């Protein structure tokens, strides 16, 4: 058979690629343990981060100075978090931080926001649903149509699966009048009807301008927010907050976060370092005094306390991630391995490089291989096999061992 050696090499190569993913995936499954970080919340009473490790009676509660709290003391230190428990116990203070507070005030100003690295890069259908934001009814209602927004805007009547030309033209005309440049890069909105109000979509046009698009009393409402004039916008995350203070969070190309204020469209920069949008995750727990911002990165967790008004940084606290068994093992065994990317919702193979120390392990494997086969193989075959194992390590050795033949070229 012609090209037999070439096909043998191809089998080993494909097997090696499979093992560069399969073997590390199995080892990771056996050795990886996620680090447990404490729950943290910035106290408006003691003006520092308070932490809780574990849950129930056995939970450890302490603040950034190391002072430990009982469960009831912890509730009292965090009235913005524990107001329901404090109210039930009849010990809810009338004022916090020199300001009168009620449960209603707290509920109205509290919000939780999450950003996950998979929010940025995920497959989309390219279809959106635009709710009527001022229907005159208490509840939001589904409109019965959807729109596509690419090189043009087209509304599709869902029942007939046909384009609604009249509505499409109405929106196309209004977008054109407001200076929208097609094609749209992306649109972000939330068409969940179980919320108090709807702000439609925020759309990034072809020139990087951020437009606000919603439907008001059956008519298009299109505005250039101007946010794209001063900032290179990369991502927008919409958030419905009870006090309608802002529309959501803008992320710029460097990873800085901004609050897009309502109704002025003013960008208020969060006083914290940029995040790595491909690797980090963000959790914001906000109350009427402070925001507790938790940034989880591969290196650890950093907590920022931001002032609710400005949002200026008032405190920060970092916990460095400890290396687990997988980190230590992969650093020595796998100088390179393949994963299917977890930074996006797309399935893509990704080459990961660990440390050069792992090359020593590959060298050891290559030497062991050469010693084992040197009497049975020609020197050229031993050299080829050893070089291949040096480059591919355990995966290459496994592929060669399973196929039980050597790399032979020519």
């Amino acid at each position, binding site marked *: *058979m*012609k090209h*037999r050696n070439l*096909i*043998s090499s*191809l*089998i080993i*190569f*494909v*097997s090696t*690629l*499979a*093992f560069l*993913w*399969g073997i590390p995936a199995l080892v990771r499954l056996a050795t990886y343990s996620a680090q447990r970080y404490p729950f943290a919340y910035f106290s408006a009473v003691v003006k520092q981060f308070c932490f809780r490790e574990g849950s129930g009676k056995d939970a450890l509660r302490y603040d950034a100075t190391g002072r430990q709290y009982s469960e009831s003391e912890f509730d009292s230190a965090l009235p913005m978090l524990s107001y329901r428990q404090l109210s039930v116990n009849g010990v809810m203070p009338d004022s916090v931080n020199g300001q009168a507070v009620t449960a209603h005030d707290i509920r109205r100003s509290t919000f939780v926001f999450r950003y996950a690295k998979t929010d940025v890069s*995920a*497959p989309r*259908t*390219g*279809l*959106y*649903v635009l709710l009527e934001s001022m229907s005159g009814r208490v509840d939001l209602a*589904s409109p*019965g149509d*959807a729109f*596509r927004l690419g090189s043009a805007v087209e509304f*599709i009547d*869902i*029942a007939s*699966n046909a384009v609604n030309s009249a509505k499409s033209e109405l929106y196309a005309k209004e977008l054109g009048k407001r200076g929208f440049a097609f094609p749209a890069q992306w649109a972000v909105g939330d*068409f*969940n009807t179980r919320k108090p109000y709807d702000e439609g979509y925020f759309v990034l046009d072809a020139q990087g301008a951020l437009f606000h698009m919603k439907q008001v009393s059956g008519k298009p409402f299109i505005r250039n927010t101007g946010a794209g004039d001063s900032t290179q916008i990369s991502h927008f995350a919409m958030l419905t907050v009870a006090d309608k203070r802002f529309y959501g969070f803008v992320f710029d190309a460097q990873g800085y976060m901004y609050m897009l204020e309502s109704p002025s469209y003013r960008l208020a920069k969060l006083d914290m370092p940029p995040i790595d949008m491909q690797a980090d995750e963000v959790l914001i727990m906000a109350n009427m005094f402070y925001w507790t911002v938790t940034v989880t990165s591969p290196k650890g967790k950093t907590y920022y306390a931001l002032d609710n008004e400005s949002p200026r940084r008032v405190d920060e606290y970092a916990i460095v991630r400890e290396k687990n068994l997988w980190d230590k093992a992969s650093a020595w065994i796998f100088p390179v391995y393949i994963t*299917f990317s977890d930074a996006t*919702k*797309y*399935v*893509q*193979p990704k080459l990961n490089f660990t440390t050069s120390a792992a090359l020593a392990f590959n060298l050891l494997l290559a030497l062991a291989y050469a010693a084992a086969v040197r009497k049975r193989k020609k020197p050229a075959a031993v050299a080829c096999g050893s070089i291949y194992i040096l480059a591919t390590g355990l995966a290459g050795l496994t*592929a060669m061992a*399973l*196929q*039980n033949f050597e790399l032979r070229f020519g």
Partner: protein
Amino acid sequence: MYRSLIFKEWVKTRRFILLSGVAFAALIAYIFLWLAQTIGAMGIVGLWEAIIGKDFTLVAPLKYLPLAVGVLLAAVQFVPEMQSKRLKLTLHLPLGETRIICAMLGYGVAALLALFAIAALALAAGLAVRFSREIVLSNILTALPWLLGGLQAYLFGAWICLEPTWRRRIFSAIPAACVVAALYGGAAPGAYASYIPYALIFIAASFFFSLHSAARFKDGVQ
């Protein structure tokens, strides 16, 4: 000679291909009936919104059928060749072993491609009645890695069936399982779009693996 060879393959596999066609037709009919019931329960608007907002997939029941068809076609086509060493007779045809194996594999790949293409077109045509082109495309893209998984499983199945020793069959099945498993990860609709070129490269490479098994068989490896 090629016509005779293809006819031989057709005789071996026609019942299975017919059965596979019936299985695909039944599954697609099931998907449409299930869709009709879902539309009845939640309304067409609710279903569109679930697709747009919650990554609802319409073709999920199809997931493992192409894989099963691929593996079984390889078994139906090549296990009889290995019984009583009938492959030895086939390889003695005046064509050369490479051409013979490539023709046999080409037949199998063409049969699967035809089956999968008809199934995908029938699905797309049916979905296009009630859903926009974006939703149809998203669902076809969701099913595409599963269909490629069927092709990949067929080629690996042929490689393993033609291999003369059990030890090597088991060892070959390990990397084959890794490559096929990569196409079946739980993911959002259309998530595999950027992996398709890699999958096609693996399929193209593995087409030639069976030649190695056939050469070992011809060498008389036991």
